[in-house]
Each structure stands twice: as C-alpha cells, then as structure tokens.
C-alpha cells in the first residue's frame, strides 16, 4: 500500500512540474512581454528597458524560470492586472466558491449515478432500463453548457424558482443574519450544483452499468444464483462490490471533465469561482491569473484523482499491483 501511494504521489508531482513548466514556456513562446503591450507613447525605449531589467525580464530564461519556480513554490503567484490585486487574493475568494459548488455536486452525482447504473444493469434489456439508457446517453451527449443553459432558461428565467445569477443576493446578503446568509447561498447553489450533479450522474451511471453487466457474466454470480440467493442479494452483495473498483478508478478519470463542466456552469450562472475567473482572465489577457488558476485546478484534479485511486485500491486490492 505504501509503495502504491508513493508511486501515485510521484506521478502527481511529475504532472504538476510539467504543467507549471508548460505555462512558463508558453508565456515565453508567446510574442512580447508585459512591457511590450503598454501602449503609452510617453514611454521611451530606455524606460521600457529599465522596467524590463527591474522586473527581471532581461535575465537568461533559465534564471527567470528558477526564480519563477521559487515564487510559485512559496505561494507568490504574481500580480493580476485585470483585478488590480495579487493573484493569491483572487484565488482566496475563487477556490472556496468552486469547492462549495463542486463538493455537493460530485457527492450527489456519484451516488445517484452508481445507483442508477446498478438498477439499469439489473433490469438489462427491459423497456424501462432501455429508456434510462437512452436518457443517460442523451445527457452525456448534450454538452455541459447546453444543459446548463437549458436549466437556466427553464428554472431561473421561465419559472423563476431560482435566482438567475451569482452566489448571493447582491443587495441584502450583508444585512442578513448568519442563518439567512447560509440559506441565501443555498438558494443560489441548488440549480448550478443540481445541473452539475445531473451531468456527473449520467456519466457515472453509464460506466456503472457496463461494469455491473461485465461482472454478471462471471461464474461466482452463477454460483450465487445456483445456491438460491435472491436476485437482490446477488446484485447488491456479489455484483456491485466487484464492479465498484473499476468504476471508482474511471471516476477518477472523470475529474478533468467535471472541472471543465464547472467552468461552463460557473460562467452561465455567474458563480464567482475559478471557472468564471479563468474565463474573464483569458478574455482580459491576464496571464498571471490564468497560470495560477490552471496550476491550482490541476492540483485539485490531481488530489481528487489520487483519492479515487486510493479508494479504488481499498475497495479492490488487485488494482494495487498495477502501480
């Protein structure tokens, strides 16, 4: 188990270094530097050069890289020019907001998806299961942003049972008592989080269905049936535990996709998390902020991925050998 964890941690560290280096390399491959873009006719070439050397842009690339890595490692992500504040301050607001959205969505989505997939496999071939299969295939085929736009149009704009944008009431939130503020966030949360949970459940249920179906061909299932176990016990006690390992491992691979889904959901519901922030940052050419969010997003995905692998290895010890 320890060897397995070490291998996972090494892989995660490698990914992180690769992503950090890639964002640095891209910043240097792109034309110009921060001072090249300043459109001030008053700024003389000499003055530009002085600014460049003051900020270290005249140093050799490898020196800049080392300094920059050091800054990143110590949590100094630089200055966000579009927000007019340090990148760290922007992240301090955005990361918790994304977690408030993602954690309930992932939990509900995965639980519901596993239940649905198991039910479909148990009723394989019947009309209800086929209808459910068509429904989940439709949902995984519809892009995240279309589902989110649909949810927004129907629930927030047409029926008006949810606020159309933001995370809190823009006027009254600060004057509310503590419980009122929580309820205010919850009333803004349920629609975007529900949308994400639905998308996750659809994807998870498809893997779960195939995994349970694959297991149902195994001989120990025949044995269970032969000794007279009820269909319910056969599925829940014998098939599901054996199908769960691969599903959790594949679930780990879903995290990058979920993150992308969160970007669109945040954009469409104007939820002030990392997704909305990075979209605005890209539009504002705020590279320092983009870089920091990409690295933070990668860290979050890696942590979630590694957690999924560890859980999978607990559920199914055979996967440990693969590491």
């Amino acid at each position, binding site marked *: 188990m320890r060897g397995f964890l070490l291998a996972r941690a090494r*892989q*995660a560290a*490698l*990914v992180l270094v*690769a*992503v950090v280096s*890639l*964002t640095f390399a*891209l*910043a240097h*491959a*792109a034309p110009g530097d921060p001072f090249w873009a300043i459109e001030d006719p008053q700024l003389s070439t000499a003055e530009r050069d002085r600014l460049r050397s003051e900020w270290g842009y005249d140093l050799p690339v490898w020196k800049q890289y080392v300094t920059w890595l050091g800054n990143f490692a110590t949590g100094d992500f630089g200055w966000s020019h579009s927000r007019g504040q340090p990148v760290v301050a922007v992240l301090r607001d955005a990361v918790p907001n994304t977690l408030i959205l993602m954690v309930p969505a992932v939990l509900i989505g995965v639980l519901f998806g596993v239940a649905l997939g198991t039910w479909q496999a148990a009723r394989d071939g019947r009309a209800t299961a086929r209808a459910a299969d068509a429904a989940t*295939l*439709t949902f*995984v*085929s*519809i*892009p*995240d*942003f*279309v589902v989110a*736009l*649909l949810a*927004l*149009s129907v629930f927030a*704009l047409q029926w008006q049972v949810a606020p159309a944008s933001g995370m809190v009431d823009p006027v009254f939130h600060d004057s509310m008592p503590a419980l009122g503020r929580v309820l205010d966030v919850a009333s803004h949360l349920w629609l975007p989080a529900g949308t994400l949970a639905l998308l996750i459940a659809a994807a998870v249920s498809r893997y779960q269905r*195939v995994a349970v*179906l*694959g297991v149902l*061909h195994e001989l120990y299932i025949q044995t269970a049936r032969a000794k007279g176990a009820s269909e319910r016990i056969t599925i829940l006690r014998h098939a599901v535990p054996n199908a769960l390992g691969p599903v959790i491992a594949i679930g780990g*691979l879903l*995290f*990058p*996709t979920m*993150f*992308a889904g969160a*970007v*669109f959901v945040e*954009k*469409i519901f104007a939820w002030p998390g990392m997704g909305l922030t*990075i*979209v605005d*940052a*890209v*539009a504002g*050419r*705020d*590279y320092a902020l*983009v*870089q920091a*969010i*990409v690295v933070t*997003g*990668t860290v979050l*995905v*890696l942590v979630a*991925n590694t957690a999924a692998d560890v859980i999978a290895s607990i559920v199914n010890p055979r996967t440990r050998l693969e590491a």
Partner: protein
Amino acid sequence: MRPPRAAIVTLAVIVLAALAAPVITPYNPAAQPDIVADKNLSPSRAHPFGTDQYSRDVFSRIVYGGRTSLSIAGLSVLVALLIGTSVGAVAGYAGGRADRWLMRGVDAALSVPRLLLVLVLAAAFGQMSAAGLVIVLGLTGWPGMSRIVRAQVREVAALDYVLAARALGIPPLRVLLRHVLPAVMPQVLVAATLGVATVIPLEAGLSFLGLGVPAPVPSWGGILLDGYEQRLRAWWLLVFPSAAIVVTVIAVNVVGERLRESLDPRLRPPV
C-alpha cells in the same frame, strides 16, 4: 447488430447541408440587412429560425456555422489521430523503457483538464484563427487516442502471425506498419468517431466563451453566445444552435458507441 440508420442519415443530412451551404441558405450569413427594423425577429416564413441582434438570418448562420464547426472538429481529430497513433504504436510495439516514458507523459497529459490546456494556449496567443483552433484542439486531443492505440497494438503484437512476420526477418517498422497497424484500425476508427463527438462541444464551448473563431465567422457556439446575451429576448437564438450541436453530437456518439459495442467481446453473451 443492425447499423444505426437514423443516426447515419442524420449525419449525412448535416454534412451535406454544410457542404451545400451557399445553395440552400436564403441569406448571406454575415449580412445585416436592417439592424433596427429586422433585429431579433422571431421565427417566420422569411426567417425560419428568426434573426439575431444584428438582424442576421439565424438559419443561414447555423448552416454556415456547421461548416466551421464540423471542419474544425474533423481536422483537429485528424491531427490528434496522426500524433496519437504514432505515439501509441511506438509505445505499444517497442515496449520497455520507451513505452514507460511515453505512457507516463500521456498519463500526465490526461490528468490535466483539456479545457484548461486550451485556455492557457488561448491566453498566451490571444484570438485564434480556425487553423490555430485545429492545431490547439489536435495537440490537446492525442493523448487519449495514443492510449487506445497502445493497448490494441500490444494485444495484436502478441499474436502468432506477427511472430511469424518477425521470424521471416521483416524489419520491425515494416511489421508495425504493414501487419500490426491495419489490425488496429477498427479501434482507431471508433476512437476517432468518439473524438469528433468530444471536439464538437469543446469547439462550441470555446466559441461560447468568446474564445473561438473570430466574430463575423458563424459557428454554433458563437451563435449560442449571441443567444446567451439575448436570453431574455430571443429564445430561438438559444434553441436552434443548441439543437444543431446536440443532434450532431448524439448522432456521432450513437455511431461511435455502436461501432465500439460491435467490437467489444466483453459485451457479447458467453457462448
């Protein structure tokens, strides 16, 4: 297993409409006939899908948008396919250290959200042309393909006829190209089909975020962005581009899944 006729016919209609765009569209997709009087018109006989906030005909824009979206999707999958097949085939056939290092790199690439990679590239290089999008989507799409190709190549390479080819003294590269890769092609085709089904929403999503092909060129995601901005005034600007994207992606997915199922022995009942 019977072929998914409805999906194939749907796809054919969409592709033919995109190819024949100048013939079947009643208006120029970029023309703004009367920005005051013809703005945000709801669907009518003259404008079956209505008009947008610049008085442009939405039907014409969606048909032309299909050209943009489909060609970017197709070409970028081709780029991803070329790189992914090469890397996967080399890793799977060579094995050993080359395999370990290549696949470690692929695992690394796969654990980063693709959208984030695309966003970094967009931030570094600014507004992208259609060709730029093809390259960016292709460069971020190959790792998944390479994994599938590698797994298949390893399986095929262990078969007796490959051993026979090697025993005859045929050079390794020739064995790989002439004897192993052709056997892998069905799976590659499935991967490519499903690849198209992931790239179409990605490209549309980028355009929806305002980061796709530059403004006057119509694309499905771009029209959807117009719809998001006009969401309180013009439902048709949301419904029709969404429908175009969804119908296309579902049709491609159905074809891809059906192909995959017909190739997957695990899903066949035991004999």
